[in-house]
């Protein structure tokens, strides 16, 4: 290597090499060192992805799961933000609801699936509810922390400037909670998918979770991997959307990042 490559090119090169190497290793070992019944092989998985994409089943199921996750994400996020701000601003309210919050926090949200099936049936609503319940808590907790972490000194400074409660809320509390809200949203993207996919695994014939369950039922390991791949891609896509929204809504963060990298 006589020509020095820029750092990012070298990093990318190393990453591509690593992933490529793992795939090749997988391909070689499969059927020889480990039974391909368990691990399938990259070429078969690729073929499965192509087939299910061409016959439309993969995009269809992915769209269903994405829709459930997005709707759950939106509902859970919205309720989380509203309640987070309300409880963050009111000491009395947060003291009152503290035990409830603690209980709900301790509960693994997917354990609610059976209950939601009873309530909402096995249709789309159940998956949305499960996804929303999961997202809600993460966003709520982050928003609450964000609202609570506003410096009392800063609020004092503003009140001396003549600020009333509305000024404090709109000029300080909400914008400063926004950073936390987005942290909550970003963290909860995979959880929104967990909600949707677990819901589908429980009871459904549509969605990536159902696809996963069907493939497993038919001992189609390549199909299972194909569904896992699709779920991962969906999660990355949702993450990117949140990231873009974040940069749009908080341009000052971008400037701070630029500063930090110099």
């Amino acid at each position, binding site marked *: 290597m006589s020509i020095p490559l820029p750092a990012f090119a070298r990093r990318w090169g190393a990453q591509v090499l690593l992933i490529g190497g793992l795939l090749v290793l997988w391909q070689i070992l499969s059927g020889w060192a480990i039974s391909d019944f368990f691990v399938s092989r990259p070429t078969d998985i690729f073929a499965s992805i192509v087939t299910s994409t061409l016959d439309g089943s993969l995009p269809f199921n992915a769209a269903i799961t994405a829709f459930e996750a997005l709707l759950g994400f939106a509902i859970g996020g919205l309720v989380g933000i509203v309640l987070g701000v309300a409880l963050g601003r009111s000491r009395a309210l947060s003291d009152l609801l503290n035990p409830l919050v603690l209980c709900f926090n301790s509960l693994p949200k997917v354990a609610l699936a059976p209950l939601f099936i009873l309530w909402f049936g096995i249709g789309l609503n159940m998956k949305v509810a499960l996804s929303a319940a999961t997202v809600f808590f993460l966003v709520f907790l982050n928003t609450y922390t964000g609202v609570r972490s506003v410096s009392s000194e800063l609020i004092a400074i503003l009140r001396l400037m003549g600020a009333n409660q509305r000024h404090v809320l709109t000029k300080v509390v909400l914008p400063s909670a*926004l950073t936390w809200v987005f942290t909550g949203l970003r963290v909860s993207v995979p959880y929104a998918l967990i909600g949707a996919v677990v819901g589908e695994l429980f009871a459904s014939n549509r969605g990536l979770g159902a696809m996963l369950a069907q493939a497993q039922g038919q001992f189609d390991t390549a199909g299972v991997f194909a569904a896992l791949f699709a779920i991962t891609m969906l999660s990355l896509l949702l993450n990117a959307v949140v990231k873009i929204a974040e940069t749009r809504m908080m341009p000052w963060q971008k400037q701070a990042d630029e500063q930090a990298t110099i």
Partner: protein
Amino acid sequence: MTAPLIVFTGVSKTFETARRTVEAVRDVSFTASRSEFITVVGPSGCGKSTLLNMTAGLFHPTKGLVQYDGMTLTDLNPRTGYMTQNDHLLPWRDVAGNIRVPLEIAGMAKREMADRVAVLIEMVGLTGFERVYPSQLSGGMKKRAALARLLAYDPETLLMDEPFAALDAQLRLKMQTELRQLCRRLHKTVLFVTHDLDEAVALGDRILLFSGRPGTIYQSIVSPLPPDRDLYHLRRDPDFVRVTGDLWDTLASTSTVEA
């Protein structure tokens, strides 16, 4: 001599927490005249900041009276402005946006606001940085922006709680110089809290030496330095050397017990 602006008479303040009662200040009396620059110096945690909070009307004394312009304070004192060690700029607003905050609260018209912001930016020497976010400003520039925001709504009294403590020595000297000049030009009354004796003597027309817990005024010294002093050459000024030396001696004699 006009009536003093700020009058503390026998002020004590205790804070009740769940576990214990803390007496922050005890029997503090002093007056501040209009346009006077008073520095309050003493060890950390001796209740200096409590004085500022009481002048701002954020706390009220447990005993004694705090009067402002002849009136006993019962509520927030909107004629004061606060600046602390943390500049508390809003990170989501650029410099101009931060300075606009008090003007927006006051409901000032857009055009008038722009003019006022321009004047303030020029005053604190931040021309060209209007559209920059705080995260990109240096420490000194943040202080300038915070100062401009403080001056924006033109409070009569500035309450400053170790505003320059986080700056390096050279920058601190520069900011001190500019602060004194600005306050003299704008006839501001200033209560400036610091734990740095040199800073207290350099800036103050009068220096209140605080001590111990609970905080009390140990000594009040009228500065022998002229109002238009040159802060850059104080190190060789015999008056400065003498006053800081005396204060160090006093502080040493009061703190031997606690050390």
